[in-house]
């Protein structure tokens, strides 16, 4: 299945792109997606466990199961306000 990765702020700058397509096996979790992503783009983050993630605009943990067409966003520490 194919999912879309969205990167923001420092993660986007480190990767050099704001969006990526990722091919994953069916029933892959956020954790698997991160492994695949970080293998190719090691500059994004050195600490996978600390990465905050959102699927289709909702915060989800790394065990969350992904589906074809999902949007997985990596959320750097927020600094709104």
């Amino acid at each position, binding site marked *: 299945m194919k999912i879309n990765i*969205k990167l*923001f*702020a*420092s993660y986007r*700058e480190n990767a050099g792109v704001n969006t990526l397509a990722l091919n994953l096996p069916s029933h892959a979790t956020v954790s698997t997606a991160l492994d695949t992503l970080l293998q190719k783009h090691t500059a994004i983050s050195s600490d996978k466990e600390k990465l905050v993630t*959102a699927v289709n*605009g*909702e*915060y989800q943990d790394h065990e969350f199961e992904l589906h074809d067409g999902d949007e997985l*966003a990596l*959320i*750097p*520490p*927020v*600094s*709104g*306000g």
Partner: protein
Amino acid sequence: MIEITTDVIYPDSVASKVANASHGAVVTFLGTTRNTTADRKVLYLEYEAYRPMADNQLELIIREINLKWPGMKIAISHRLGHLDIGDISLIVAIGSPHRANAFSACSYAIDRIKQIVPIWKKEFFEGGEVWVGSQEDMSLKHSKDGPTTITIP
């Protein structure tokens, strides 16, 4: 009411959204850009957001406030893009029958915005730039707050 915009935001405009004949109190908070952070001289800021997740998280915060303190009207307006020193980045306005809860709700709103809303600010300061909240930002902060050496003559 929530708003995320690259346009200038105005306190009176946001406050007017929560005014109501049954409200005895309107509390307004303005978040403004400071010229100094941890001894760095800040030149300007740039804000970006993940939309529509940021919009949805602001709506969620309003629902949380309505559950905790029923009967209030809430308006939140966040500005994105290039902000100069002194510009207003955030306005939170709460209209309430009585003032005590209005202050609490306003404070709660700001705390929650800073916890969960996917908005980021980049600080451009004299000598560099840094995403606030990043590891780089933390190490810049610590290098200023770190142990100092005292020389005894």
